[in-house]
């Protein structure tokens, strides 16, 4: 009797401690501790601001799609097509692969205006075109990294070097998760490879590992590593083992009195619940036919490209892997997951080898994602989740208005390519308090930004702002500095013009 009263007390204490005050998500207590150290109000006010979005779905096209074939209608570039690139665009510039004087490459696909807003979108994105009035296109993005791995790291961790916490880790660290049976930061990958910078892109850096992204796998294995009980062990048997563990651990707690033991008990129970809740939320077969159709999703679909040594040659337009991930993303945010990060690999269209061209591969990649993305936005809207979900789409940099010339110096079918271009590229955002429309523009050939430049820091600042964290104050003391996602300087600004 005594034991159970003590246990209840201890439990209550633990829960109050961990699950925190009303209104704070699972995990936000860490924030509280942090502020206590910094002498700030312990209620989190200093870092928290009113949130426009409750969750984030970030769609990263790893490798970086060509903005010139998707969003940048540039008649002037068409005019210069095939001509030598003027010197002023080359002098003092560093390129990854371009050598000497490359030729200009006009947009390869046709553009039309869409929606009431009359946005120019390429023929490769009919789905997105149909919902274009829901998104805000930013054509004036720029970065200072022009290799994949550092550029991806800068974008997602705020630092081009490895070892810093990812945006999703920061956000879950600051806000926790709304569902204590699911991880707060979920990563879904498609395209057959992980992005260049690998798992560091969802690592927690110097933040506790609790906040690292949990990669959910959709290749037929466990959706979360080690989630399945060993073969032959029934759920009932698992329950029996956990009951014994619980009794023995409670006995241990009674003798030693370490609250950590109670945490362990609760983590084992949470693991047990996750064994049910995760496969449940990951099970697309529960979705009705019309929803599957909306995304182009196919439950149980496992693409051959996902396990190929070079998946690019196996890409098919009707591959449902990314569509499945989009549908999963909706199910996850619906269930309170804070940050869903999608990576789709295979967008690095240099045109220097088979399966990576603008003219042949890019259309296939667009088919894989376009309907799914339009479906995702439509579905979020019809469920009333759109306004509380921030959707971000883009690559890590853009692609050059010149054709890449290090392998093929003349245009060859199946080998149209563009090099990495950090000076101007396109991203779009939607939902979560973002005002639909367009922001920023580039010069006639899409080389430089003409107006309203948006840097990576601005993007990060805006994302934190929308999710309800003060981007400037939200920090973690490490190595003598109050580390922030947006870096040590104040260059990052909220892009106020795109907020509704």
């Amino acid at each position, binding site marked *: 009797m005594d034991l159970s009263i003590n246990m209840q007390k201890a439990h209550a204490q633990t829960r109050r401690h961990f699950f925190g005050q009303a209104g704070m998500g699972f995990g936000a207590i860490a924030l509280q*501790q942090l502020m206590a150290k910094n*002498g700030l109000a312990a209620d989190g006010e200093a870092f928290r601001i009113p949130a426009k979005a409750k969750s984030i779905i970030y769609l990263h096209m790893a490798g970086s799609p060509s903005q010139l074939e998707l969003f940048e209608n540039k008649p002037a570039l068409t005019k210069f097509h095939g001509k030598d690139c003027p010197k002023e665009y080359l002098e003092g510039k560093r390129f990854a692969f371009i050598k000497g004087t490359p030729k200009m490459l006009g947009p390869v696909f046709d553009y039309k205006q869409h929606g009431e807003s009359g946005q120019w979108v390429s023929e490769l994105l009919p789905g997105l075109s149909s919902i274009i009035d829901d998104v805000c296109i930013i054509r004036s993005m720029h970065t200072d990294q022009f290799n994949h791995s550092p550029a991806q790291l800068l974008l997602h961790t705020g630092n081009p070097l490895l070892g810093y916490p990812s945006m999703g880790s920061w956000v879950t660290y600051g806000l926790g998760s709304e569902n204590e049976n699911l991880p707060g930061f979920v990563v879904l990958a498609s395209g057959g490879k*992980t992005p260049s910078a*690998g*798992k560091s892109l969802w690592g927690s850096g110097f933040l506790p590992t609790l906040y690292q992204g949990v990669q959910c796998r959709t290749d037929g294995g466990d959706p979360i590593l080690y989630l399945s009980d060993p073969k032959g062990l029934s759920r009932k048997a698992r329950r029996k083992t956990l009951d014994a563990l619980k009794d023995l651990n409670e*006995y241990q707690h009674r003798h030693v009195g370490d*609250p950590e*033991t109670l945490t362990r008990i609760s983590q084992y129970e949470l693991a047990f619940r996750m064994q049910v809740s995760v496969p449940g939320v990951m099970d697309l077969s529960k979705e009705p036919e019309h929803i599957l159709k909306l995304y182009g999703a196919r439950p149980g679909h496992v693409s051959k490209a996902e396990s190929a040594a070079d998946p690019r040659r196996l890409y098919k337009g009707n591959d449902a892997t990314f569509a499945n991930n989009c549908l999963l993303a909706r199910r996850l945010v619906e269930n309170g997951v804070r940050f869903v990060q999608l990576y789709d690999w295979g967008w690095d269209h240099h045109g220097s080898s088979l399966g990576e061209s603008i003219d042949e591969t890019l259309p296939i990649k667009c088919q894989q994602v376009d309907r799914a993305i339009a479906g995702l936005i439509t579905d979020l809207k019809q469920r009333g989740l759109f306004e509380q979900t921030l959707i971000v789409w883009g690559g890590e940099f853009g692609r050059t208005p010149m054709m890449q010339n290090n392998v093929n110096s003349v245009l060859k079918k199946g080998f149209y390519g563009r090099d990495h271009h950090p000076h101007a590229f396109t991203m779009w955002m939607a939902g979560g308090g973002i005002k639909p429309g367009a922001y920023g523009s580039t010069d006639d050939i899409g080389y430089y930004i003409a107006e309203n430049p948006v840097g990576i820091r601005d993007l990060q600042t805006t994302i934190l702002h929308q999710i309800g964290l003060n981007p400037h104050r939200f920090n973690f003391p490490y190595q003598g500095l109050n580390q922030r996602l947006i870096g040590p300087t104040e260059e990052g600004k909220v892009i106020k013009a795109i907020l509704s």
Partner: protein
Amino acid sequence: MGHPKTKKIRRLLTGSLFVVLANPVVSFAGGKISFNRDVRPILSANCFSCHGPDKKARKAKLRLDTREGALFDLGGYHALQPGKADKSELILRIEADDPDDLMPPADSGRKLTNEDRRILREWINAGGEYETHWSLIPPVKAHLPEVHQKDWPLHPLDQFVLGQLEQNTLAPAPDADRYRWIRRVSLDLTGLPPTPGVADAFVADKDKDAYEKVVDRLLASTAYGEHWARMWLDLARYADTKGYEKDRHRDIWIFRDWVIDAFNRDMPYDRFTIEQLAGDLLPDPTPEQLVATAFHRNTMSNDEGGTDNEEFRVAAVKDRVDLTVQVWMGLTMGCAKCHSHKYDAITTDEYYRFYAYFNQTEDNDHPNDSPTYRVTPRETRVKRDALKKELAGLEKTGEVKLPELLAWLKEKKIPGEKWPVFSPVKAVSKNGSTLAILDDKSVLASGKSAQTDEYTLHGTLPAGTYHTLRLDALTHPSLGSRNGPGRNQKDPNFVLNELSIEHIPAGSATPRQLKIRTALADFEQKSWPVNGAFDGNPKTGWAISPRFGADHLARFTLDAPLQIKEGDRLRISLSQQYGSQLCLGRIRLSAGHPGTENWNLADLQTAMLSSILGEPLNPSRRQLAAQLQTDGDSNTASLRQRIATLKAEISKIDKTSTTVPVMREKPAGKQRVTRIHQRGNFLNPGKAVQHRLPGLFAAPANLPTNRLGVARWLMAPENPLTARVMVNRVWARLFGVGIVETEEDFGSQGLMPSHPELLDWLAVDLIEGEWSVKHLLRAITLSRTYRQDSKILPGHLDKDPRNRLLGRGPRFRLPAEVVRDQSLAASGLLTRKLGGPSVMPPQPPGIWKSTYSGEDWKTASGPDRYRRGLYTYLKRTSPHPALITFDGGSGEVCQIRRIRTNTPLQALITLNDETYLEAAGAMARLMKKSSEKLEQQIAFGFRQILIRPAEPFELERLIRVYHELTPEITDKAAFLSSAKLKEGDPSMVALASILLNLDETLMKP
């Protein structure tokens, strides 16, 4: 505020689900304000970012990090008026009602508490004195404090701990029982549990020094070095791949083995430091000293296409600079890359002056990781040296005296008539070499040495029937210091691409091409066999590298017998098209009568040697002759066999050699000019700077101006930080939290030590103990403080939730590797092999999907499946999920301390990961074998993992669940096979899995 004077007690849970950052509830005695303890943390956290050392960031020209700055005349008033808080601007501003005047400004997000204001006020009223930051004051051994409980301390360190406990009216915990203590100390010193037998012996040991014996035995085991190496490898950001996009494999495991070995030998920390930072700069460095320098070659390199090598070289050098200061001195210098440090007095200028020391190594982010060094592991190298010595001795015994040799050769002389020599009458070089026909009918090339060439020889043979043609490629003193046989003096190889033999019968003008059927050569370079010399392919051919300086031969067997009549001529051409002057230097041709196609190599070589008897018997010829002679002598057969065995063993050992990237200094005159990178950007170089050490303390004179100087500077007795940082690090591994909790920051932003005098005492003791880490560990693990029971006594949780006062034993979750190793050890699966290349234990399929690298995780099936976690292959972009989930690092950056978490994903691993299931299976098998009785089997298993005997409740509960499980495990075969068993008791396997998942199992007791 999080500094140690916090009064409010928070019910924080140590190392729990949510990491508790800081909130030590240590209260220090005395009401007197101390600048370092009380005032500096307030100023540093709230004021220094605008009023600190960084000139560019400084507002209102006011700096508060020095007294001089605070006393500066601001125009009739001063921030600090000693003794007069009411007249000090600082106080007026922090107490201002007007938000425009208030400091810190509202938009800074910083806010002072009333307590902070009270402290600042009191400090100024008491005179407003500054102190040097505590960590920059050299440590001294303070007098031991007076304590009441005089029989408690066993070691001076206990006295400091007890003193503080008593001040806080807490009593230390009683000693832990011996079972728990021996499990604790074994896990701490070796990362492995004791066996129950060893524990029983200790419990029964009535000797006064029973504890000492345990600690000494553990410190002497090789497992000690393996366990403590892990701590160091975290700091060294050790990994088996290079990082970034490609993240390709890197051979650097021998550095890991060096660290293990250094700990096992208890290499003094100063030597340990110097060898890693500057082993290459020591006089006549040993192979180990060169391997040690791989410490700083653990930096990442970017092999992604199109990357700028200089950019990533610079990133690596900066990483070395930052890490060096961080690891040895607990200071962060990294911020000064871009701006002068806002909190600690390190300027950008100083940063790049220090950077200059590290900016002189040859490595430059090249994909081949150069410079690298090839080395054989020390143990095997020692063995190889012994074998080589024996071999040399045997070869000497077998050596034949010259006169005997000559006599033998003469006697053995193969009948000359079997091999008539081809007599050239004309020798022509296509590309301008001079071909001279010597008296012995050999042809010697000299003069111009063309890249490629073709020699054509016209000549005759005595009449007769011939089945073979022998080409001798001979050495000659005119062919350079190695005597050829090729013409390129630096690479005296040759490549004979095609040999053509034409027969021109007397009176005829039409040559007839002879076909070659087979050939035999005395030696063939890999991929360059003699068969290539007559296959019609001009790209293939015969070459002999690396056997230079020796005569070689090839016998070509003709497809059909060659009949030579009087007056017939032969035209023989030798095409050599490889390039690089790889052409023959001296050749002689002879033709063999029938039967010579069956001669063995030894006879052919004897024939060749006999034909050059008139020439000096140079070492290679002498060796060949000796070998031919002993080969023919049956008495020496066993000797030869031994020699062959030795040679094979030596070559086997040579194959265990590995390469490792090392540090190598650029030669004088080629050193780089170091420039300041403006705003940290290497593309934006500023003024050039010379190397200079940061002026943190008075450096010893006459330090070399290179990395060796840096290493000596770090270990100089004047350095107030190095010993403290190391002591603190070791302490933190044993007690869960350092005496300075912020192990990574001993600067003004870091936390104050909980026991400053204890830290200093141990630091001085480490230096006095000649930097012996074992000495330090021995002292701590034998202390009374360490021996305490970890049970939380009533009242303690409230007064000291995080055990910062050390009034109980340490209890926290085991590190990732230990969680694994313990399960494998308890179940008897653990493979105890020291060192070697990293291994791949099971991990779920599909984890490795890195871009491009194409490298696979090949799960080990043999003993390597069960090696210690330390040896698990670490790919930076994709570390083993079980290790990383338990807070292990990825090796991407220096990991000063692992922040412990407690998550459901960890539970899933120890419940469901193959490794733990196999351990449960093996343990169940041991349990079933241990006794006939269920109860005893379970009691046995309990002790295998927890060492102590189970209590009745525990035993009963386990027996109950065993019976409950039996009907529930329906598919017994499937469950057994997931534990890698073919047969057995599935309920016992599930029960063993429970044992591996107990809270007590995962925690240090």
